[in-house]
């Protein structure tokens, strides 16, 4: 009997490791029933705010080739109305992108090159939705991994899978993928205050590879309509 070549054995071993790694997500999954499993559904929804909030983040973006940029991001989330409003700006305050997503409707209030492409607006608001808005698909599956991590599995609109993983220390991770070997997005949240993460690592795999590191500057509940200015500020007497 012929011995396998070392390269072939390494390939086999590598494949086995990948398979084992992917098996870490294997758990006995149970479809949740809103009538009887509300507690578990609440756990699955714990990464998301339940009431309108405003977040301000410093965003460090890194793209393939090592290019990077740091920006400020403001996002208002209204989960009840399914509304997201997001503004990206330079550290000097110049607005690069201002977009709003209202259910399935996307509107761009302002976008300057190179943020003025329609695909950018759609991809960005999709990312914002993934990060801030609980998945809309009903009846997720639920399971518990060996390390105690709670896994909630949702089906996306375009056939992708969305996993929400709540670790025993309450930090969380969101993954979307077509198959375990075709990842789309990966979000890891840490440094939680209440349920709000101070640090978010966001990895995008399509259409290009990019990394976002979000550091929380402020988070506050929103009540009523925002007003653009405060009394006296228009007179430049701050």
């Amino acid at each position: 009997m012929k011995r396998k070549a070392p390269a072939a054995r390494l390939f086999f071993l590598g494949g086995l490791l990948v398979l084992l790694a992917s098996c870490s997500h294997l758990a006995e999954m149970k479809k949740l029933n809103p009538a009887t499993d509300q507690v578990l559904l609440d756990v699955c929804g714990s990464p998301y705010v339940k009431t309108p909030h405003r977040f301000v983040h410093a965003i460090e973006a890194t793209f393939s080739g090592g290019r990077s940029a740091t920006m400020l991001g403001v996002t208002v989330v209204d989960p009840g109305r399914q509304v997201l409003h997001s503004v990206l700006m330079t550290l000097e305050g110049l607005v690069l992108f201002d977009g709003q997503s209202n259910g399935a409707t996307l509107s761009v209030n302002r976008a300057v090159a190179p943020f003025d492409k329609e695909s950018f607006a759609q991809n960005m608001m999709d990312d914002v939705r993934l990060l801030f808005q609980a998945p809309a698909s009903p009846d997720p599956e639920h399971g518990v991994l060996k390390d105690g991590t709670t896994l909630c599995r949702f089906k996306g609109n375009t056939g992708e899978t969305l996993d929400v993983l709540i670790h025993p220390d309450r930090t969380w991770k969101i993954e979307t993928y077509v198959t375990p070997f075709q990842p789309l997005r990966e979000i890891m949240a840490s440094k939680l205050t209440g349920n709000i993460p101070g640090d978010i690592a966001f990895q995008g795999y399509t259409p290009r590879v990019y990394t976002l590191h979000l550091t929380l500057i402020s988070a506050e509940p929103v009540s009523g309509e925002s007003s653009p200015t405060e009394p006296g500020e228009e007179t430049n007497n701050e």
Partner: protein
Amino acid sequence: MITRHNVKKQLLTAAILLICFGLVGWGETWEDIRRDSSDIVSIKAEFSQYKHLKILTKPLVSQGRFYFQKPDSIRWEYSTPVKSILLMHKGSVKRYTQGSRGLVEDAGGALSSMQVVVQEIGLWSQGRFTESDHFQAELTGGKERKFILTPREKAFAAMIARIEIIPSTQQKGAIKSVKIVESEGNYTLLKFTNVKMNEKIAESVFRDAS
């Protein structure tokens, strides 16, 4: 690429702010301003930046320090909410930003764009507003004097509608406010404090980020 465009816009904005700061509160005409600009050799100041957006109920505040040395050396440094340092010195333009890897130089490759900014600085620092290829300057009188800069180019106009500079009536060389208007309800207001003029500034301030 995103970084190239962003850095150009950021630098241009910073340059506008810095030079406007140094030139206000002087003469009554452009000729007076040009003549008076020769008096200022250096500027040191602290600043607070108030970003107003419709999406915000109160402005987003950034703070930092600013240094200028004639003819064209600038340090524009944010300390909060994100540490960031822009250095312009002897024709070189660099930007450092605090991130997950510490304070690192931006990998932008936008040097050609930066050269444009430096050329603008050269003009403005000599009070030659009206000679700029990028901005149209208007001097308004009345109850409150105001310098208004309007972009000449469509590309810049897409970013900034106008810049309003209100000079101090109390202190020569000081300003009341700089307001950069992008659109209705979206503007940036700058307030400078602890302004010191014509004090010696070490060259390293413009050369080293640390």
